[in-house]
């Protein structure tokens, strides 16, 4: 199955089981993980990656989500502060990591799938990097995310 656009991408993500979504979301975040040096983010992504093997409990996910959320809150750019777009990229990586490990009960309440949410935040992280580098608005993440999803669907 080939993914050509976000409409198909979103629909295919939503159709996945939650553990599969977590594992795929972890792959999305890993592509931008270098933009965050926060160990809480790393822990969350590693846990999400293991989700597809059924070895992760809801309690572990809740703890990881709480820690990653703290990383997200701590990395907000506050009103009036000079923007460091590289640091801001780290904020969106943390936000993507939170999506990866969002507990199932909470994920069920959201209108968007957690994998879609993680994908969007990972793209934002890359967007912030392009702003920091002044390299225009081209963002390769969407195409790379399509490929990762295709690989999963075709496996």
């Amino acid at each position, binding site marked *: 199955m080939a993914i050509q656009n*976000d409409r198909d991408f979103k629909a295919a993500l939503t159709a996945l089981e939650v553990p599969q979504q977590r594992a795929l979301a972890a792959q999305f975040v890993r592509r931008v993980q270098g933009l965050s040096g926060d160990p809480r983010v790393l822990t969350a992504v590693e846990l999400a990656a293991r989700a597809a093997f059924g070895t992760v409990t809801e309690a572990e996910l809740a703890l990881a989500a709480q820690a990653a959320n703290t990383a997200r809150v701590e990395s907000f750019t506050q*009103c009036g502060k*000079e*923007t460091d777009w590289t640091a801001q990229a780290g904020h969106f990586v943390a936000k993507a990591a939170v999506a990866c490990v969002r507990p199932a009960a909470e994920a069920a309440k959201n209108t*968007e799938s957690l994998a879609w949410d993680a994908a969007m935040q990972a*793209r934002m992280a890359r967007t912030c990097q392009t702003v920091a580098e002044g390299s225009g608005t081209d963002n390769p993440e969407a195409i790379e995310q399509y490929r990762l999803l295709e690989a999963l669907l075709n496996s």
Partner: protein
Amino acid sequence: MSASLDKGVRVLKEVIDAPIASYFNSCVHCGLCAEACLFYTETGDPKYTPIHKLEPLRRLYEQEYTLLGRAKKALGLSKPVTDAELAEWQELVYNSCTLCGRCSVVCPVGNDIVYMVRKFREGMSASGNAPEGIKGAANRTVTLGSPMGVKLPAVKAQMRHVEDDTGIPIPLDVEGAEYMVMLSSMEIINFPEYLGAIAKIMQQAGKTWTLCSTAFEATNAGMQIGNSDLARVIVSRIVDGAERLKVKTVISPECGHAYTALRWEGANLVGRPFTFEVKHIIEVLGEFQAAGLLKTEGKETDRLTFHDPCQLARRGGVIQQQRSLMNQVAANFVEMPDAGFMNWCCGGGGGASAIEEGEELRLEAFKKKKSQLDAVKPDRLVTACANCRIVLEEGLEHYQMDIPVIGLTEMIAEHIPEQGA
């Protein structure tokens, strides 16, 4: 007297106008303003009594503009305002005042204490006694056009991201559009989903809208630091942009002081009436709702409450619209005590959140919001100000309260059916 103090005192003398003179003369020292200020109620320290925060200004008024005060000054019996005193007052005029206006509305003689604090800030700013965090924001506004240093390429990058996310084109510099949408730096940097929400809402309502490349930034650092000239420059950019694009309405974003600066003070700052209307996004959504242009599906079923941004509700009088919008998409909406007109500030308005050295005090003051939340125990907290949102998140994190915070405009947009669905 140093040159900066001399300048500051000169500015302070200039800002003492008829209202300020009458306010000082009218104060009956009742202390009601203290009970209305979360920095006083949460610390119990009398130095945070709002009217006390104006003491150097009051003395200057007395010494310069009253007969008895002049006589005392001539005889060397009055205490002059000094650099050291103004430096000490920085904490009282900036860190511990969010310009929330609660003190003004409880004053039994009608003293607008916020007006006085803002005038006092003019002198503090002129004398170099504004906090570094706010000075930096003001300098970036002058040099870069944005208090947080956001430039057009960053906005374009966010536009591109939102277009990919929503599949809806984001218009830029479209002449003759009905609405010109402003953004706060905070939305560009931290909450790009706000722009996506606007795109979805406008598409469904069938309205034309645009961003403006020369006036995308709504935040008014001039208001926060206490510099009318700077506030005027920022408003003028928006006026120029709106008139160039010939829009009918400029939409102020989910940012409290941006709204006050543009909606309530903008025309006076530039010295002429606007050729367009200014509305807060919540007012616009309220109008769409009333006209049947806001068609949503489904409702949130968890327990939601709403934090009223001070500049929107108390200073701006927008109170019912957000409640009506909440009820459209929330089945279990509960009100906090003192919600609406008398809501308690998040603790970070008026530039306070940009002051690093004020963080400890801010978190202390947040106990007031905590007590409001504890009273209703919501699952999630909704608001309509990007700055409130971050200050709330930090406070909730500090007190380990697991209550996600969301923006009202985004929540509404989440309930709009996808086009073609």
